[in-house]
């Protein structure tokens, strides 16, 4: 779907997707969210399912616009943000 200047496309992979029962969320950029850490906090507050996910040994990783991201990576309207466990390919 086309990204608008205020929308956020969030993707979940592997066991995150299993636990949430969905692979993505589309929402408006929440007020006050400016980075990955802020988005994690907002998700936790909005849905208890995220509590266990983001507490899972702190091992859930993030990507913003298809690049690995840290807690301080900026999140803006129109971005694609993904959450997933450490990768196990190869």
């Amino acid at each position: 779907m086309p990204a608008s200047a205020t929308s956020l496309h969030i993707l979940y992979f592997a066991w995150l997707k299993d636990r949430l029962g969905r692979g993505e969320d589309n929402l408006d950029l929440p007020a006050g969210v400016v980075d990955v850490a802020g988005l994690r906090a907002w998700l936790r507050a909005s849905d208890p399912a995220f509590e266990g996910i983001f507490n899972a040994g702190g091992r859930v990783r993030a990507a913003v616009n298809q690049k690995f991201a840290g807690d301080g990576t900026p999140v803006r309207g129109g971005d694609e943000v993904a959450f997933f466990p450490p990768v196990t390919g190869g």
Partner: protein
Amino acid sequence: MIRIAVQEAPFDTGAEIAALAGMGAGGLASFIGIVRGGGEAGDALRALVLEHYPGMTERAIAGVAETALQRFALLGCTVIHRIGRLPVGAPIVLVLAASRHRQAALDATGFMIDWLKTAAPFWKQEIFADGRTAWVEARPADDEATARWARAG
């Protein structure tokens, strides 16, 4: 020349090698990863299901391949990673590196497979004979293998 593919279909190793061999290379190294049965606990593993992050995966693999091409002065390289359900014994990943000299080709192959394991967004789920499933945990040894290349400058 860099060739990247993420696909469900099997790859044709002979054809991929032939495509790289005609570039004036003196050496061509490859690595093929295979779904391995009989784990530590003697589990009856039947298959892996490989999930990936479309778009980011291809971008991450291309980054690894371009870095290898520069660092090892390769004539070409190929990375094909399969996704979907792969039974025990099935090939998962093919890495090829062609260079004028043998050591560069071998080193580049090791470099690429180590980096793929930590830099490309794939996740493996194990499917057991009794129907049980489990997501594979990342291994610290993989991060160490990747870090080796940073130290080697």
